[in-house]
């Protein structure tokens, strides 16, 4: 085993910033958790004659508005990412604040929906699945919101983010896209499939 002895021992070499890879790996894992919920839901859907069961009529208006808001927020957050790559911190802040607002509106819409629905957590198996899946997704939206707020909080520091240094911003964006993708599948399963 040859050991080079050219560099000084006090110096430590840098390694690439791997945080984005870590996050991607984690999100793959997370999506499998939702996969478990989806599989459970589809199993119940397949094994029941009437789905959703009598007495659980799914509202579609508020969730559809919510979906449009959340899906468009994915584009909005991407504009923020584009801005920071041009070293435009102000622009990034604008788009991220907009995303945070959209996320907050989505969560408020979820809460409103919970309050006005005609069924509760324990009504039947469909309601169980519905509340658990949307609840877990809502938790993830909340976490994504916290990440975005964290980015905004840090961007107050001059020079904290720049065109060459914006890993945190990218990670918040990736997480937000993940939440969005999960929601699209969830919306398809829980809302659109009940029409058929």
């Amino acid at each position, binding site marked *: *085993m040859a050991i080079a002895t050219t560099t000084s021992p006090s110096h430590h070499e840098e390694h690439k910033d791997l945080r984005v*890879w870590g996050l991607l790996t984690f999100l793959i894992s997370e999506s499998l958790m939702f996969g478990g919920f989806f599989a459970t839901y589809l199993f119940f859907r397949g094994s029941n004659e009437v789905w959703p069961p009598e007495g659980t009529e799914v509202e579609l208006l508020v969730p559809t508005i919510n979906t449009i808001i959340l899906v468009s927020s994915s584009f909005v957050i991407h504009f923020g990412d584009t801005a920071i790559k041009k070293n435009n911190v102000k622009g990034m802040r604008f788009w991220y604040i907009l995303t945070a607002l959209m996320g907050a509106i989505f969560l408020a819409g979820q809460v409103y929906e919970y309050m006005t629905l005609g069924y509760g957590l324990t009504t039947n198996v469909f309601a169980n699945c519905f509340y658990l899946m949307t609840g877990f997704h809502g938790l993830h939206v909340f976490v994504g919101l916290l990440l975005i707020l964290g980015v905004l909080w840090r961007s107050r520091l*001059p020079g904290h983010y720049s065109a060459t240094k914006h890993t945190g911003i990218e990670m918040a964006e990736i997480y937000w896209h993940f939440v969005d993708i999960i929601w699209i599948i969830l919306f398809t399963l829980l809302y659109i499939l009940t029409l058929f």
Partner: protein
Amino acid sequence: MTLEIPRNQPPGKEATIVVSGTTHHHPEAWKWYHYFTFNVDHKVIGIQYLVTAFLFYLIGGLMAVAMRAELATPDADLLDPNLYNAFMTNHGTIMIFLWIVPSAIGGFGNFLVPLMVGARDMAFPKLNAIAFWLNPPAGLLILASFFFGGSQSGWTAYPPLSLVTAPIAQSLWILAIVLVGTSSILGSLNFVVTILFMKVPSMKWDQLPLFCWAILATSVLALLSTPVLAAGLVLLLFDLNFGTSFFKPDAGGNVVIYQHLFWFYSHPAVYLMILPIFGIMSEVIPVHARKPIFGYKAIAYSSLAICVVGLFVWVHHMFTSGTPGWMRMFFTISTLIVAVPTGVKIFGWVATLWGGKIRFTSAMLFAIGLLMMFVMGGLSGVTMGTAPFDVHVHDTYYVVAHFHYVLFGGSVFGIYAGIYHWFPKITGRMMNETLGRIHFILTFIGTNLTFLPMHELGLQGMPRRVAMYDPQFTHLNEICTIGAYILGISVIPFTINALWSWIGGKQAGDNPWNALTLEWTTSSPPAIENWEVLPVVSHGPYEYGHDVQPLAATEAST
């Protein structure tokens, strides 16, 4: 390592990111009390994992001995049946989630992977510390559940049984498993990123030690399966405490869904417990047989093959749960296919031993013992993987015999082999070979004496998980119990050996076994940043026999 981000830079001026240990001052070497803190050094975390896991091993072992003492007679005369059930459940839980998985993946993985790939630490040191510190609370929750009667539905926690016995204890149990599951996911993503991106630049993919291949496969498997168990356990938790009815058949639920969610994780979990051990075997055998590993690529890729196929075999645990015929057929076939990559490894090791200059050190003894036991366990596994046979032996002691052969004769032997092999590197001191041999003989005899009769018991129809049994099984159960006592005693020489050697063993030197992988190029115990200067890889990890150096003076005579 910390990521130092200089603050208050004028905009436009690029800040430099310094990933280093120079910005925070750490001591020359870790003191004993550093091991009780939230330390982020991968070697400290590895030792923390190993020691905590070993303590849980002793607790789980005591439960096992109590159970065997109970089973020495047909009647439930020693333990209350409920307590027996609690012991049975928590013995399984502790041994799987708090001993084998943390020590094999967390302990050896954390200690060795950065050293083997030539990194100064894991990719995310703080995350690593978080992953470890989720384990002790989980253990405390498991132990605390005994104050509420202990969870009594087996380590599988099938509903509806788990919904009607000891609800508080069951909830604590679920929380504990979710904690260790989270720990497993965080640790695994760390391993994946470390192995993929942190290799020292001079190391090619075919120079990566096989242990790292095994840990890579393990981590991918853990990442893909653990969250599904978390989902299932969350549903169970809601059923227990919040009035939902996912698994309550009288309210439209379905218990088989839980079994699917559970086994989608828990079958891969057995591969999580054995793949790192395969990695340890691939490291130990070439070193002590002084021969290049036979079929490096085959062994590396068979780890990945086990990882992929292992995700598609989970229903073989549920052949008797009313699964349809096509499912039984598909999962029988896929289960038998897993035996192929496993066989590739076994033959690779046997071929490595063939014609080698074998040194019968304690590590090697355990590795050879493992070979024998694991093949036996694997063969009984093939029989049970076939649905027609499984229908007859399902939930009998045949199953218990099978998985104890692969988990004790496989995983625990592998962990022992790993400890004997890397103890000099971890502590800088040699273990005592005489005590090691006593330990091996006791363990080997004890294991076979305990678990071999169980095959016969199972074939005769003795059900598992019950405190009382038909008197006709008494004689074989007595033999099993004697074996269990021997196993209980066998831990004593090992513990004495480990503690004694750690304090006052012979100095080991950097490379007592004359091994070629990178972890042996640094001092023992390794310096805090692992190397003064990162090593340059100039040869493969297993090129033994070309230029055998004289054996180290510390090595035991054989």
